[in-house]
């Protein structure tokens, strides 16, 4: 039940994307997400979609597994689509009762939905192919330059690592407590909003108690091993760029150039022809 949420989870398998340096993936994801909002024409979408499909194929993560995680954001997606569909003014396409759908609205709804989907899949592709530890390692090293302005980069990365590490543990714990309370006849699914909220109490109280207990244990274990922050700390597996990482950077750059060029170019030609 609760384990079906796959957003932000790591998918264990072996692929080029999995082996890539996390810094490449972080920057790549950032570039991709920004690029999604830079173009305004079909060609741009096609390039972005093609790039995403290529990455998905390279990642060896089953597409069905990715989609399963998307269910939880379906609601937000629907709201975006509906708002854009009904609340955009322009040339009327259909009109009945108080509802009018415009051509612009339809266009906007479709493009927004497409963008959001690509955005979410693109971002989750990173977390699916990178372990939390790797991710924070990459973040720590990639943002090292911020130390110049006294940013506690290591501490932030450590906090992130711990937070990410705890997601699957807490999910598992939730699953366990949920089952234990179900075995005692608890009912999480029926009733109105108030009843459902109250039904969460037997789940949330033990969950908080166990989260605090785990946090306490972890703090103790870290202290027992003399953890004292990032100064002078060395890595067992330092991040070093390999050939494939440079290749990935080049591909990324190529993608960026193509998408900007295509996107801007046709906007310009469109402008010219409309004149």
């Amino acid at each position, binding site marked *: 039940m609760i384990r079906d949420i796959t957003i932000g989870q790591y998918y264990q398998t072996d692929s080029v994307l999995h082996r890539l340096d996390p810094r490449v993936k972080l920057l790549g994801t950032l570039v991709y997400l920004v690029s999604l909002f830079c173009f305004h024409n079909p060609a741009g979408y096609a390039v972005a979609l093609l790039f995403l499909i290529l990455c998905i194929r390279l990642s060896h993560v089953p597409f069905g597994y990715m989609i399963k995680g998307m269910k939880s954001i379906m609601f937000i997606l629907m709201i975006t689509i509906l708002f854009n569909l009904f609340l955009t003014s322009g040339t009327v396409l259909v009109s009945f009762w108080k509802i009018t759908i415009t051509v612009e609205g339809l266009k906007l709804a479709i493009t927004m939905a497409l963008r959001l989907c690509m955005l979410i899949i693109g971002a989750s592709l990173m977390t699916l192919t990178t372990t939390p530890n790797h991710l924070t390692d990459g973040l720590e090293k990639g943002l090292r330059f911020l130390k110049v302005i006294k940013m506690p980069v290591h501490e932030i990365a450590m906090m992130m690592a711990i937070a990410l590490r705890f997601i699957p543990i807490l999910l598992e714990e939730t699953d366990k407590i949920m089952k234990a*309370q*179900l*075995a005692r*006849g608890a*009912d999480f699914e029926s009733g109105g909003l108030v009843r459902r909220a109250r039904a969460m109490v037997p789940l949330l*109280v033990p969950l908080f108690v*166990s989260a605090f207990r785990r946090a306490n244990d972890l703090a103790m274990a870290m202290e027992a091993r003399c953890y004292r922050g990032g100064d002078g700390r060395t890595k067992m597996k330092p991040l070093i760029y390999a050939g494939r990482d440079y290749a990935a950077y080049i591909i990324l750059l190529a993608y960026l150039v193509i998408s900007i060029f295509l996107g801007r170019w046709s906007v310009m030609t469109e402008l010219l022809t409309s004149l």
Partner: protein
Amino acid sequence: MAIIVDHVNYIYGQDTEQAVHALQDINLQIPDGQFIGIIGHTGSGKSTLVQHLNGLLKATSGSIYYNGQDIYDEGYNLKDLRSHVGLVFQYPEHQLFEVDVFSDVCFGPKNLGLSKKEVELRAFDALRQVGFPEELFYTSPFDLSGGQKRRVAIAGVLAMKPDVLILDEPTAGLDPKGREDILDMVKRLQQESGMTILLVSHSMDDVAEYVDRILVMDHGRVVFDDVPRQVFSHVEELEEMHLAAPQVTYILRDLKKAGIEVDENATTVDEAASTILQAFGKK
């Protein structure tokens, strides 16, 4: 026949690359009133199996019958099943949440929709059955010791008056005294109320003294299903599964090798003591 498990398979994470075949073709008959020990190494599928018996996990294939009814039938009342088949999870004290012990034990019967009086009566009975001291009924469950918390959690399931009680590693993390107390209590429950008991454990010594029948699980299969005496005669196979026979079995085997006439199939400490005394008396 209270519970029948028929060709049950269960696969974790079916559509992913890490799919694990946790249960493989399990067939069982669990008659009323039996005390059964389920033994297996970590990851052998014993916890997965017991979660099927009250419908918390749904088998990938196969069926389970409770009192002749298929629990996977459409419209079968799983909530009702869970009140008949009580399941106490590993570290059950982690599920406590109420402000005091008594209200926590009330949670189960309250979910069954009973009257307030009946709920409190059952909670009171259950706490007495597990031997919980009355003066602590209204303290916070979080202030109790580990052993006492566990008693409260077990009482929480007992208060639903189940016909079958399943305990998943009820002695994990307890000291020897606490272990014995809990196991004695479970045995007493079975004898007094005729409950069917399934005790999951990885320690043979825990179960040897108490159970009528042992299921040994390994890699999702039931390997042995017999009376303790028979199961413990397969010492070598058990060791291959990273399990062990009870300590008395080893002592008796060594004695026999040394030429002393003892009955090496004795399973409990008492039986072993009497056969050793007998052997030496004969000399």
